[in-house]
């Protein structure tokens, strides 16, 4: 059992526990003794870190005991924090038993998360999409979204992507075939207010069924997504965007956002120069976690652009863009309508993408689809994940499901859900088809052998 050796007044007294040999009551008494020694310390903090499997006490009773023991020593509050919070608030590493090492990455550049194989992720702006893609968009990758001519769902993805970057202070380069690209910034969503966040959290936790008082689940499962546990933190990795609330104007200052129109230029040389100068500012140097940049190019082969019939020109632009982004801390998102390209060109574009998504419209009032899928009325569209970026690794990322429904929760928040089959209507007798039945009877539900 180690205790800090005669610490100075300002130093934080630490308690290291070896729980298997030491009963908890002894730990409490020892910590109380330590704190008694440091009565004069202005902000005494004792951090007690215990692996949950050993401690059978509930946190409420533990904090009760601690406060009763030394409440007369100082008037400060006793707070039983979880391991993550304790680690985040006190500077020196307290306990060697902490398992949640991923908490360290959040102290680096906000909005950038470390991933496997030396990659770093930035959020797509949609929490569900980050989860599906295994963390977000890797820096240095090219994301392509195939549009659907019938519905502008790709704009939802693009807006969230751009807003997320601006909220994190990441510079943005936006190119669009519209006459006034800057006007699009007014339609970007703003992060939802904190009040809503907390209520949604509580709701979702209650919905999870069993309420377990001892939250051991927080410590188990090292692969739990990091961004869930820091809701109070202002700089969340992924924000919840309220599509009805426009982003505050101070976010898109000239220094941070550069808008380029691609409709009027003869070819893509100008856009390529813009991208090259933008990416030059975000060059990747080994080890440094500099600010990430985002490039969003909307409808690259839109028919109103002059370059839209120059197949090889566009391919060449994408190839050089991909080459440049590989060595920089940036993510490029390009949306394009595949129906306007030849089949062979479409395949070439798809091969060049690191991450490939496509959106599809859902027809309104489709009775067949309504019977097949549950929650059909709330669905806005479908999202298909064709390819997930594999940088620095050869292992493909196989998803359990590749098609997701895009829904708007409370008409404000974008969520992606797996498709669920609607319960089969028993009265129609479709589950016991006549073709498979041995006895040839068409009665449903009877055990006929």
């Amino acid at each position, binding site marked *: 059992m180690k205790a800090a050796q005669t610490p100075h007044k300002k130093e934080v007294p630490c308690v290291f526990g070896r729980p298997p040999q030491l009963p908890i009551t002894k730990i409490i008494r020892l910590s109380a003794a330590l704190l008694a020694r440091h009565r004069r310390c202005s902000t005494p903090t004792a951090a007690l870190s215990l692996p949950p499997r050993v401690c059978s006490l509930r946190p409420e009773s533990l904090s009760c005991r601690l406060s009763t023991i030394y409440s007369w020593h100082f008037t400060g509050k006793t707070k039983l924090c979880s391991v993550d919070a304790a680690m985040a608030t006190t500077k020196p590493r307290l306990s060697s038993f902490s398992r949640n090492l991923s908490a360290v990455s959040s102290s680096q550049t906000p909005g950038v998360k470390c991933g496997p194989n030396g990659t770093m992720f930035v959020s797509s702006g949609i929490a569900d999409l980050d989860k599906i893609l295994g963390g977000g968009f890797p820096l240095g990758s090219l994301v392509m979204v195939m549009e659907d001519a019938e519905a502008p769902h790709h704009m939802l993805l693009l807006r969230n992507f751009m807003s997320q970057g601006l909220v994190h202070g990441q510079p943005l380069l936006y190119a669009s075939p519209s006459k006034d690209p800057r006007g699009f910034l007014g339609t970007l969503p703003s992060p939802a207010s904190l009040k809503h966040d907390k209520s949604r959290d509580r709701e979702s936790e209650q919905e999870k069924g069993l309420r377990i008082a001892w939250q051991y689940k927080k410590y188990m499962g090292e692969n739990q997504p990091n961004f869930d546990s820091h809701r109070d933190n202002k700089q969340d990795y992924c924000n919840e965007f309220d599509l009805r609330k426009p982003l505050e104007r101070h976010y898109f200052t000239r220094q941070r956002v550069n808008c380029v129109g691609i409709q009027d230029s003869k070819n893509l040389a100008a856009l390529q120069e813009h991208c090259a100068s933008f990416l030059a500012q975000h060059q990747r140097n080994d080890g440094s976690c500099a600010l990430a940049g985002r490039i969003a190019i909307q409808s690259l082969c839109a028919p109103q652009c002059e370059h839209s019939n120059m197949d090889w020109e566009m*391919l060449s632009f994408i190839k050089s863009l991909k*080459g440049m982004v590989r060595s920089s801390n940036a993510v490029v998102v390009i949306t394009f309508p595949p129906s306007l390209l030849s089949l062979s060109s479409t*395949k070439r574009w798809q091969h060049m993408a690191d991450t490939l998504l496509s959106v599809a419209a859902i027809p309104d009032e489709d009775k067949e689809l309504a019977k097949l899928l549950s929650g059909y009325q709330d669905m806005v569209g479908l999202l298909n994940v064709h390819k997930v970026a594999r940088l620095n690794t*050869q292992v493909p990322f*196989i998803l359990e499901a590749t098609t997701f429904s895009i829904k708007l929760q409370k008409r404000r928040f974008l969520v992606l859900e797996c498709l669920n089959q609607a319960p089969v209507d028993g009265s129609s007798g479709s589950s016991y088809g006549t073709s498979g039945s041995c006895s040839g009877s068409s009665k449903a539900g009877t055990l006929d052998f």
Partner: protein
Amino acid sequence: MENQNLNLLDRALGLDGPSEPWPLSGRVVLIEDCVETSGSFVLHQLVKRSLSPTSSNVIIFVAFANPFSHYDRILRKLGCNLVTQRDNKRFIFFDMLMLRCPDEGKSSEGGLVLLYEKILKTICGLPGDKKDYVTIMIDDISLVEVAANGGSDYVLDFLHYCHALTSEFDCSLITLNHEDIYSSMERPTLILQMEYLADILIKAEPLSTGLATDVHGQLTVLNKGTSHRLGRSGNKIHNFHYKVKENTVEYFYPGSRV
């Protein structure tokens, strides 16, 4: 080669025989893949086998798709240190990610001609004993076409010149291309010519039932005119499934996975 663990792909390629002479020397290998299943793991496997300590191969890797760091990280997990091999002059990396041939029609081939000359110079510059064991790898041909602004004739010329090297210097030529790009074209000259030139054709496709976590796809290996060991020559087609992992790739016959 005998003491290494040989998998089905090695056997299909004829790498299970004696390592001298290198079974692939003087032969052209074409790897085909599609969007759903990437064939680059075959390329990584061939890099690893070529750079094994028992062989004395030199690889000239012409990369259009990924930078050196990407291959370095992958091969390191497979057990091959590319940085060391690069320092030992056994792995020569040409980074062509930013190659863009000039627009004007006449000099569009300029970039590719220069590339060919560079390869030739590198081979000629090798010490005498290593000159016989060169492997040229190109990743991938569809990007060579983009770099040549769609001039597939120039790309074909370039490939024919590289093919000439296989008979002149006995080097092997391994290329990767995406066959689903050409499947919708009326006259896919490039891919047809490449398939004709190739001695070994390796095709990575998804299973007809789609992708799964246990089986990532199927490989079809067509080995034309194997003339080793029993002295026979004739086409042999191998088909098996594979699962790609970080440290290795597992190959197994359909249904025989434990």
